[in-house]
């Protein structure tokens, strides 16, 4: 599984979205399923999937799928498709 699809499934699983749901445009609180409780689940899921630890600032900043991609890159995780 590519890093990108792993990140996508973190979002789908923690937010309870169907397996084919588009996630690239997701933004915190735009969708009612991404609330503060789901946010913490999402943080935990991504941390465990990629074996990383987010800082407080990173948790507060992760306000969209796009930001999550940027944060992963800052942890040295490439999301390019090979």
């Amino acid at each position, binding site marked *: 599984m590519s890093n990108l699809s792993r990140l996508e499934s973190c979002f789908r699983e923690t937010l*309870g979205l169907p397996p084919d749901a588009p996630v690239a445009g997701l933004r915190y*609180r735009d969708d009612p399923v991404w609330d*503060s*409780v789901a946010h*913490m*689940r999402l943080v935990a899921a991504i941390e465990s999937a990629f074996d990383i630890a987010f800082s*407080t600032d990173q*948790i*507060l*900043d992760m306000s969209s799928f796009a930001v999550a991609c940027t944060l992963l890159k800052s942890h040295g995780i490439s999301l390019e498709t090979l």
Partner: protein
Amino acid sequence: MTPLPVPPLPFLSFLNKRDHDAAPALHDGGSSGWLSFGELHEKIVSLLPSLPATPRGLVFCLLPRTVEGALAYLTAAASGYALMMLDPGTPRLDGLIEAYQPEWIILPEKSDLSISNLYRRVRLDLAGLALWQRTGTASSSPHPDVFLLLLTSGSTGGRKAVRLSYANLAHNTDAIIASLDLTARERALLHLPLAYSFGLSVLNMQLAAGGSVLLTDHSPVGRDMWDLARAQEATLFAGVPTHYEMLARLGLDRLQVPMLKTFLQAGGKMPLSLTEDLLRQVQARQGKLFVMYGQTEAGPRLTCLPLHKMPEKIGAAGYALKDGKLAIEDGEIVYTGPNVMMGYAEGRADLALGDTQRGRLATGDLGQLDSGGCLRITGRKQRFAKLFGERIALDDLEQLARVVVTAYALEGADKIVLMTTDKDAATHRKLKDHLVKSTGIASPWLEVRAIDAVPYQTTGKVDYRQMREWL
């Protein structure tokens, strides 16, 4: 300024003053800045003619956490009407309107309200809010003592509400202030829903104590709330266990809100390790932590564990508030006091009823009292399964299972259903084996089910009713 003849509620007492009070009262981060108590007074005087008070009726208040939302609440309270506080996103509002026949409805302007045949919109000078007045025949007046109606379960669309009197709210607000030793210097960061008894009590206690309230729609896991708290120097945070789990993960010090020193925790028992961790962080900043226990039925606070009892009594729910008494009857916590509701309501006819509760509340929670009067909650009476005559506390099973989110009994033939977001069949088997070994409950009475996400109420508590609907 003109003193207003208002109902005897401590959080409206500023309306009895003649002098303009320049002390800050409300702010929501908007461009208009802090509204002082004097300005609040003037604003309420100007709004009151929109809600002519006779004959006395019922107002539905679906209010956002903004200065306008708080103003609408206070104006409705000052008008002498009975209020039902509701979440702006209340499901099946039509059913509630049909059941309670409110004379007035205040709700966000953008709300979709399919009641135009029964209600007409009237002018209300509050940005973002709309006022609707019922047309046609009048319903019977609520009992003169009834002040506030709060739903017992807001998120599931049920219509059962508690009836709280003016005296209930007056007593409880004063007792809360006494138990927290609250001063006018405190500035509360209010991020809890106004229709949630805990959230509303924070607004009430602050105004009654002459303190200020920073209302916010932001969430504890976003940057905006903490930027606002820092800029406006919030000193008091009130939250339920899920909020403190978030704070624990984020780290209080890393949020850079050094002024935030008073922490209130209610809305459910926290794991001991979380309370200990929170206590350490709060003490490190010379702050105060109050753990409290309450129920909407009690207006809402029952007990408080103050900081100075904390290392010794950590994990306990604390002591009965002023004028309240605790007793344990057959294991169940029973509270008597002047803040116990008048009774329940299922619809308009019940609003005419007087006090049917007589100051006594069987809480449905299980607990122990020590000789000093300190209460420890051990479980919840309603959350039991019965297997062959033996009672099994589901809260205990939750603690044992750890990964498990909840468990409960089916009607009739009891079966304990453990719900988890883990979808791995091997994990399910391990979980079941672990519980069979540690409790002696036979395997056929345990079922593990995967769910997509744990449902939460808007208050942050686990929504067990929703889970029951999935069975």
